[in-house]
């Protein structure tokens, strides 16, 4: 099994760290994974995109034109990359920002109001954790328990509230993902 994920949005939305967290969790589950970032020269704003490949076997090429799953965190990313999802693939939209209608009928769409969910929890910074929750809930690509371990590891030097908030964000995301699966 080999699956490719593209996270896209703008700088500051946690695109890169979402990709790294997902790849890291896959590695922790003894799978193979590559994380490839692409970004412009901007320090903030600008477009951000990363590709994560997760596989049971060694990954030969980390470059792929089409992905199995696309996460589009804003309108521009959606417009630019919606076409890159494989037929029958999954398109996860941040419906707080992506308002345009979808013109592809050959992919599954999971709309999650990521920004609204994150803000309701207390911080837009956990938007990317909501997204990973949604991916775990809808695809089961990595295990929730192992992901929680990597969250604990990532935030071990931060105040405990940070981890707590991320765990809540993860649960919310998983709920959205699972509802989609049904």
């Amino acid at each position, binding site marked *: 099994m080999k699956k490719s994920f593209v996270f896209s949005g703008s700088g500051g939305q946690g695109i890169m760290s979402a990709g790294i967290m997902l790849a890291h969790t896959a590695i922790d589950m003894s799978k193979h*994974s*590559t994380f*490839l970032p692409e970004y412009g020269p901007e320090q903030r704003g600008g477009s951000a995109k990363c590709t994560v490949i997760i596989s049971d076997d060694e990954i030969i*090429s*980390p*470059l792929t*034109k089409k992905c199995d799953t696309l996460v589009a965190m804003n309108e521009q990313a959606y417009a630019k990359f919606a076409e890159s999802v494989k037929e029958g693939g999954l398109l996860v939209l941040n419906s707080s920002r992506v308002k345009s209608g979808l013109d592809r009928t050959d992919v599954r769409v999971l709309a999650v109001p990521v920004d609204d969910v994150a803000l309701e929890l207390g911080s837009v910074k956990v938007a990317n954790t909501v997204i990973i929750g949604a991916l775990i809930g809808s695809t089961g690509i990595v295990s929730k328990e192992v992901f929680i371990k990597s969250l604990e590891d990532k935030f071990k030097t931060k105040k405990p509230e940070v981890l707590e908030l991320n765990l809540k964000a993860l649960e919310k995301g998983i709920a959205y993902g699972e509802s989609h699966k049904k």
Partner: protein
Amino acid sequence: MEKRFMKGCEAIAEAAVRGGCRFFAGYPITPQNEIPEYLSWRLPEVGGAFVQGESEVASINMVYGASASGKRAMTSSSGPGISLKAEGISYLASAQLPAVIVNVSRGGPGLGSIQPAQSDYLQATKALGHGGFRAMVFAPATLQEAVDVMYDAWEYAERDRGPVLVLMDGCLGAIMEEVTLPPMKEVNFNNTKDWCLARVDGREESHMITPILPEPALEMLNKFKGMTYKGWEMNDVKVEEYLIDDAEYVVVAYGIAARVAKEAVNTLRAEGIKIGMIRPITLYPFPKMSLDGLDYDKVKGIIDIEMTIPTQMRDDIELQVKGRCPVYEYGRSGGMLLDDEGVLSAIKEFIKEGE
């Protein structure tokens, strides 16, 4: 052996430290900035020194100085910065000083783009500087290979007394993969090595490094170096030959391009097409024998795939093919990346043409 999920630039920086590097000087340029960033805190931990130079020219000359004092020294940059260092690299070659240079290459020419490309093959293999010297050029395709190459780069640099180049591209610099890190090498740092600028007890003469050699001495040096380069061709070629025994088509690709190409080779093999790949790991010395030795009664075409337009390795390939079959080329450039679909359909087109 220690496994870590690391970013390319950081992995080779750590491999350099473990391979004995104790001096770095460089000047920032994307996409290699994580190398100096990492070494800025890592080298002091092991008693080494990190300098952010005021320019590329200053940095390569600091490497020259550090190497003359017996330290394992390196610098890193990307295409435009390597061009600026060209003079210093040539001086290192002239002074017969070991050093390791990393080029994490990007789109060119000129300022080019900050996105990945393989546009520096000719610069790396033919003329890293003026004056007709050569450097061994290693082009890893995975982070593990990059770590292994970096770890041993000084062994070659010191054995043959000169600069060694590790040529990566922006993809390999930025990608994160799992790597196994080798143990820290025990390296004896002192100024008693033959190339060091010092008067040492027990040595007959002090070693002097001078840019001014009388003409006959300079010619002697060049003759000696010429023999060294011949020796590399005999002994130091590294190459991966993949499924070439029965191949009717052979892809030639290195670095990141070879990874995309290998995926295409596997797909085509599954469709029953007899295709294989030759992947140079050393770009200089070039794996001449692998190409020259193919069975041209069977081989119908050679396909050169590089992340640059026009392709640059093609001349080296054609010198070995000697017109015995057609050579095709496919590339992307300027920071536009190769991808699986593009490479696969290009190869299919060439095969259709060849049949």
